[in-house]
Structure formats: structure tokens, C-alpha cells
């Protein structure tokens, strides 16, 4: 579904991704973790071409992003993304947030798009918030709307960049539950997160990054139970102890 082949990326002189090789198959849930600044966000932003790469190749759903015929807008309808800071459109209601892309990009009729949106709101557990503006929602509710918005395009892949780290602790669970459901429904997911409970329960694979490199990857049990590299040991020590 997603394949990184010898990918390198620089920001100016800063080498943020170093020879990345990674394969995510259809239906797989991969959790990416690692210290701040290690390149996790950059990694997943390359998948839907929010960042471009300087060397190597990325293949998504059988198509190379370097292909001259490649259309980023088409790619992005197949790849949904959820951000740490929700990024809902503040001037639109929840319903409008969700129906915007389906009507404008896919050309869905308004009525049809609303039907889909209502189903999705149901699925993320806030069926009654359709007419509300984002500012009047709690953080957890906002993030669930953001997930619904991404799902409205019926993507084949979902990317999550620390979806719960801007949330109050009590709201984290409601978002993780939605994500867990999604995983159980067979969605291909790449999730940057520090929620180790979630990783343990849901991920098929954990990828640990540091300084732009993939240091270690493996099944959650192996990774959390017996991390191989000293880096990963140190990192897990820090985040699990408090």
C-alpha cells in the first residue's frame, strides 16, 4: 500500500530523513514513535506529498509519487490525514467541514454528502453536533470531527500525526476508541503517537525513529517487551516511568 525506498529529505542543510525504507501493507496498522524532532511528522507528511523528498522513491497504492503523470489531489483523496491540532475550518459548521471536500472535489450532490457526513458523525459518536461550530466543541469532539472529515473522502489509507497529544487526558480515550474501531474495520493506518497502550492493543507493527532514521521496528509485544537498541530502551524508559 505504502512503500518508502531509500528516501532522503533535507530542510535546507538539515538532514531530516535518512535512507528510509519502509513498507506498509493494506489493512496494516503501523505506529511510529520516537523522540521529538526525530522526523516522525515529516515521514508521514511525505506520504500525501505535503512534503516533497530529495531522493529515493515513495509508492502509494501502486503509484510512484515521482511519476510525472501523478496528481497530488487524486492521491490526497485516497489518503486521509488527521493532525495534532485538529485544524477544523473555524468558519464552518461541523457538517460543512465534513461535506466540503466531497462536494467540491468529488462533485457529490449536497444531499448525498450530508447523508454520508451524518453517518460518519454517528460512527465517531457525536451524531448531535452537526450544526455546531468547532469553537463550541471540546478538543476530543473536534478531533473526532477531523477524523470524520478525513473519512468522508473514503480514503484507503489514514495518517494520524499525534492525534491525542493536544487533548486533555479524559478526552484521549474517546479519540483512541474511534481509531481502534477504524483499525478493526481493516483500514490501513500509520499513526504517530506516544500512547503506548493504544500501540500495544491495536498496532500490527511499531516503528521507532531517531534523528531521521528508523532505528528499530517490530511487533508491539517485542518492541515494548524487549527493545533492542539502547536508544529505544532509553526512550521507553523515559516515557513509561512517570
Amino acid at each position: 500500500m505504502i512503500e518508502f525506498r531509500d528516501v532522503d529529505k533535507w530542510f535546507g542543510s538539515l538532514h531530516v530523513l535518512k535512507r528510509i525504507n519502509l513498507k506498509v501493507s493494506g489493512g496494516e496498522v503501523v505506529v511510529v514513535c520516537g523522540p521529538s524532532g526525530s522526523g516522525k511528522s515529516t515521514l508521514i507528511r511525505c506520504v500525501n506529498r505535503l512534503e516533497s523528498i530529495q531522493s529515493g522513491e515513495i509508492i502509494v497504492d501502486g503509484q510512484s509519487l515521482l511519476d510525472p503523470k501523478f496528481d497530488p489531489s487524486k492521491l490526497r483523496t485516497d489518503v486521509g490525514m488527521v493532525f495534532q491540532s485538529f485544524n477544523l475550518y473555524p468558519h464552518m459548521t461541523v457538517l460543512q467541514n465534513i461535506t466540503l471536500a466531497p462536494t467540491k472535489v468529488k462533485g457529490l450532490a449536497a444531499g448525498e454528502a450530508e447523508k454520508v457526513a451524518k453517518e460518519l458523525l454517528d460512527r465517531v459518536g457525536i451524531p448531535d453536533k452537526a450544526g455546531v461550530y468547532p469553537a463550541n466543541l471540546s478538543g476530543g469532539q473536534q478531533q473526532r470531527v477531523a477524523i470524520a472529515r478525513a473519512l468522508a473522502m473514503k480514503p484507503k489509507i489514514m495518517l494520524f500525526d499525534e492525534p491525542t497529544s493536544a487533548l486533555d487526558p479524559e478526552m484521549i480515550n474517546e479519540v483512541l476508541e474511534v481509531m481502534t474501531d477504524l483499525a478493526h474495520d481493516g483500514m490501513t493506518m500509520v499513526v504517530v503517537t506516544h500512547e503506548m497502550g493504544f500501540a500495544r492493543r491495536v498496532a500490527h507493527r511499531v516503528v521507532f525513529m531517531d534523528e531521521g532514521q528508523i532505528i528499530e521496528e517490530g511487533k508491539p509485544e517485542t518492541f515494548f517487551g524487549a527493545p533492542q537498541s539502547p536508544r529505544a530502551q532509553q526512550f521507553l524508559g523515559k516515557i513509561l516511568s512517570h
Partner: protein
Amino acid sequence: MTYNFDWSVLWRGQSGLWLLQGLVTTIEISVVAWVVAFTLGIFSGAVRTVSITPLRWLASFYVEFFRNVPLLVWMFFWYFAVPPLLPQPLQDWLFDHGAEFWAGVVALGVYHGARFSEVMRSGIQSIPKTLFEAAVSTGLTMAQAYRLIIIPIALRLIIPPATNESLNLIKNSSVALTIGVAELTFQTRQIETYTAKAFEALTAGTLIYLVLCLAIATTMSQLEKRFAIPGMITKRQTGEF
């Protein structure tokens, strides 16, 4: 003081009519110029925030070129320097149909367009970049993201500075008297020459400008409230800091 005030000059004779005519012309030229300025400003301001380099350069050039030269000079430029470049019949037609008004419109519109552009640019730049990324991530094209998300939000955010700029435009419309547009300031001078009552005429002019500007400022703050994005601080806060 040896000066004797005589406020009746403002309604005796034609003064009242002149002031009214001046006010109408001021409003006409301001409104048309405002539309030009706003359109130019929104467009070039938005273009200056995108990553397409040639467009951005073009817009930056426009802004830096026009806003740094005095408006008076632009008035002369559009009225005296540009028409001779046109074919003779067109020139004659223009001169018969209020060329000075349209030169004033272009001068004001293009000059303030450059300044609106700056307002718009800073408005867009105050929107988190990730919001744009979120829009693009759902498959919207860059143009759609700007049209549907970024510009509508920026327009709401820039209401206060844009109001300011609009008031400046109205006040600057008086510079058009240098190319013969009979707007409000022109008419107050007219009253003065006919009645030799400078204070009364100027006071009337000042008051009309003041009322006009306050009316617009009030309307805009209503507009600001009406279009406020829920949850954003838009109303003026009076607090400790």
C-alpha cells in the same frame, strides 16, 4: 478676535447644495475606487502568500512600486501621463466623459490596492499553515483551499485593519481635487471663495468627513460582530493588558 462667525453661509445661497454634491462625489469616487482597491488587494495579497514564485514576485513588485510613491504623484500620472498614450478618439471621448473622475478612481484604487494587499497578506499569514495543509489533505486543490477556506477566514480577520484602510481611502479621495474632481474638500474651498468664510466652510467639511467615517466605522464593527468566527476574539477587549 476680530473674526465674526456667520454660520448661515452654510445654508444661504448654494452652499448646502455644493456640500451635498461634494459629499455625493466623494462617496462615488470612494466606492468605485474601493471596489478596485479591494479586488486588487485581496488578489495580490493572497498571491503573495503562495509558493508560485513568478506570481509572488509580480505581486510584490506591484505593492512595493505603488505604495511607496505619494498618491498625489499617482493622480498626476493617471490623469496627465496616461491619456496621451491612448488613441485620439478615445482621449476625446474620455475627456468628454469625466476623465478626471476615472483617473482619480484608478489612482486611488491602485494605490490603496497595494495597501490592502499588505493587510490581506498579514491576515492570511496569521492563519496557521496547518489549516491550509488540512484542506489540501482532503484533496482540495490549492486554489480551492484559498477560495473556500483561507480567504473567507482572512476576510473576517482583517475587518478592523481593512476598515482603517477604507477610511484612509475616503480621506485620501480629497487628493483628487488636484486633478479637478469636485469632491467634498473642493466644495468647501468653493464655499470659502464665494463667501470668504473659511472657518465655517472648513468646519462643515470636517464634520461631514467625521460623520461619514464614524458611520462607516460603526457599520464595520457591526459587520465584524455579525461575521465573527465563533470562538475567536474579535470584539475589542478592554482588560488589563
